[in-house]
């Protein structure tokens, strides 16, 4: 029988984090549900693997010149943080404000953007859009370095309205032009040299030179503009101030947050949560943290309907399995291969496919990706040398009478300690039948890597292959 408090907390941690092992779960349970929500939404010291250690052993993650090492660098952060919501919200914004390496050839600046998502990702949407508009990676990604007072480039202005806030149908072509005029002069330092280097993928003579924001007053169109019915000598910040007070923006932000953190599909009950988040958006002064609190404390989010209502994204899948297994606690060869694995599953960190980001939900699952997902999770969770798996074995032993588990105990225990994961009767009967092939499991005198431990590893491997494990 699954304890409902534990199941609810595990649900919260799958959404506000990457899942949790039993030790983490117990720490959050001690705070109570509301306390856990507050702790997750107010990150303090993440206690992640320190940069000095990473830089010492991984020269490619010190220089951050290329994609594999740079994605791995973020992986380490997600694997080792004790503030998972900070990484989860950064991942959310990375998907929404999708900025990709392929055009930039500048991973350090892309990771600086991710740092900005950590800093500003739970604050006010007005501040976040302000930071985004001054982010050099975004500036190059959407060509705002080519947006001049004498000749506008509408790319950033258009996407700011269409993909980052109000959505198509809520503004006119003239609004796009006026918006773009307001962002003229918002560029990066040494913009022309950096643009050439990015276009040529130049690493010469001495590797990459990272980017910073620069405002060129002489290139800014300071003339009068009319935007969404308001008129003035608007600069970019004025445009953002107008954007964030639109109903369509509130709806957009609430919907996207809901779909990432609550459910792929908005049901009738889910719609109420979206409306509550929209109301919080305005009442809090556009604060994302407050919107998330509204969601996590909503009846909908706590309901059975919301559980396992999302397909895990590849990053969630990979990071969750590694955190559960407890591998990669120190810098180690192979982490860059793990980041490549996410790419094979369809989600390469720092390389979203287009400016629209990834297509999520059921689109994560196709036959090739599913094989990758199952193989990866099964391999991680069946390695009985990993500290997280060893902890599961010890807990199973402690839970058993005289250390002996019957097949049902083994299947239910593994489902519990990997989640708790709720599975269908059919799935459970398959797991129990598999466990029955070798009779009861005696863990009373288990030794590292022995047959008894391997049986646990095999059961964990099988759970990782279930349909239910693919869901968050």
């Amino acid at each position, binding site marked *: 029988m699954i304890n409902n408090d534990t199941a609810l907390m595990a649900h919260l941690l799958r959404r506000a984090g990457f899942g949790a092992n039993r030790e983490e779960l117990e720490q959050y349970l001690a705070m109570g549900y509301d306390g856990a929500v507050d702790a997750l939404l107010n990150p303090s010291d993440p206690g992640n693997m320190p*940069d*000095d250690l990473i*830089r*010492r*052993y*991984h*020269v*490619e993650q*010190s*220089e951050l010149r*290329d994609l*594999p*090492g740079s994605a791995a660098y973020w992986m380490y952060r997600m694997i080792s943080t004790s503030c998972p919501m900070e990484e989860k919200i950064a991942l959310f914004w990375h998907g929404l404000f999708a900025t990709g390496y392929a055009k930039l050839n500048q991973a*350090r600046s892309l990771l*600086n953007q991710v*740092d*900005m998502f950590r*800093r500003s990702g739970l604050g006010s949407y007005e501040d976040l859009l302000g930071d985004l508009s001054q982010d050099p990676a975004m500036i190059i990604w959407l060509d705002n370095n080519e947006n001049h007072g004498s000749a506008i480039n509408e790319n950033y202005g258009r996407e700011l309205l269409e993909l980052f806030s109000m959505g198509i149908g809520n503004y006119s072509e003239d609004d796009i032009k006026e918006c773009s005029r307001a962002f003229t002069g918002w560029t990066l*330092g*040494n913009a*022309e*040299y950096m643009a*050439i*280097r990015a276009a*040529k993928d*130049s*690493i*010469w*003579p*001495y*590797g*990459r*030179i*990272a*980017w*910073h*924001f620069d405002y060129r007053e002489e290139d800014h169109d300071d003339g009068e503009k009319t935007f969404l019915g308001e008129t003035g000598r608007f600069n970019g910040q004025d445009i953002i101030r107008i954007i964030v007070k639109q109903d369509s923006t509130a709806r957009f932000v609430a919907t996207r947050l809901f779909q990432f953190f609550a459910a792929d599909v908005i049901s009738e009950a889910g719609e109420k949560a979206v409306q509550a988040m929209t109301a919080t958006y305005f009442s809090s002064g556009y604060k994302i943290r407050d919107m998330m609190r509204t969601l996590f404390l909503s009846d909908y989010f706590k309901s059975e309907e919301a559980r396992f209502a999302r397909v895990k994204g590849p990053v969630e899948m990979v990071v969750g399995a590694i955190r559960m297994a407890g591998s990669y606690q120190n810098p180690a*060869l192979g982490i*860059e291969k793990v980041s490549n694995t996410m790419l094979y599953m369809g989600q390469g960190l720092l390389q979203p496919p287009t400016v629209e980001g990834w297509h999520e939900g059921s689109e994560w699952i196709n036959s090739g990706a599913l094989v990758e997902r199952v193989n990866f999770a099964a391999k991680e969770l069946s390695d009985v040398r990993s500290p997280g798996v060893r902890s599961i074995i010890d807990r199973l032993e402690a839970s058993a009478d005289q250390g002996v588990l019957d097949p049902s105990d083994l299947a239910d225990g593994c489902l519990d300690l990997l989640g708790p994961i709720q599975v269908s009767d059919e799935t459970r009967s398959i797991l129990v039948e598999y466990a029955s092939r070798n009779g009861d499991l005696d863990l009373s005198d288990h030794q590292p890597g022995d047959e008894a431990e391997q049986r646990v590893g095999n059961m964990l491997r099988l759970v990782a292959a279930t349909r239910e494990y693919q869901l968050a």
Partner: protein
Amino acid sequence: MSTQTKSPGIALDYVKTIGIVNNGFNGRGFANPYDIVVGKDERIFVLNRCDPARAAAIRVGICTMDEEYLGEFGKGNGTGDGQFIWAVAMALDSQERLYITDEHSHRVTIYSLSGEYLSHWGKAGAGDGELNGPAGIAIDSSDNVFLVDQHNSRVQKFTPDGKFIANWGSLGSGDGQFNLPWGAAVDSEDNVYVADWRNDRIQKFTNDGKFMAAYGSSGEDEGQFRRPTSVAIDSDGFIYVADWGNERVQVLGPDGAFQLLLRGEATVSKWGEDYLASNPEERAEREVSNLTPELPAHLNTPYHISSQTEPYFWGPVSVSLDRQGRLYVTETNRHRFQVYQKR
């Protein structure tokens, strides 16, 4: 741009920068260099640490002060004879045999300066003479080899063929203790210096391991360090420290008192000039760019400043000296080294 603090005790003049990024192909340039030694014939040997994605470039490159690239040697990535996985540091013995540590394979590999693999020794473990992550290496005037055994928190002393002689140290921050130590050096009296990386200090020992002194503390002020990686001592006893986490080099007097600080002042190398000459459009924009910009507050850390300020050291991992009083600062993230001359 002034990046030196002058003092009466010592002065260093910037000479030149040598290097260009090498993407893994044969030929000139470096790939995340980690250390330098200079032979008696003044050839400069550069250890390319590199990374798994460009394993072919894990090797030793050779050049001259006139920026002539002489070639490279090594046997690639792996654990076979002469191969490396995570190469860290180098030292020369009296016969000019080149010792190279590998912190992943837990061993020392010896090459001749003509690039011939000679032998390797080292066994993983924590017992006497066993290694767990050998990092810095120094060889004294009697050809005793001192290895910084980082994960065992100790220094070990060996004969040139790897026979154990002695060791000292344990995990901690007290005198004679270490926390992930890295670089090593010996002075003209064969005293041993260790860059005690995570304790942010340099420790000095007698040749047989008696604690003599510790220099530095954690911080960004003069005489303070952030994760020092390498140390070298010149014939007058001045102590050069790669203050890696602060992205700078500091020089201490023989008594450990602060003397001088370098932030880096790289210029375009001959190889870099060749590249720019064949890419005139890039050169034209580079010439009107400001490569020492003021940065916004959230990027105001030594690491971020160096990532955007090309003349500054970025990843100054090693300090090496030659017989002419020249200082070589190896920069991992810029694939080059800067040379300074002691006045």
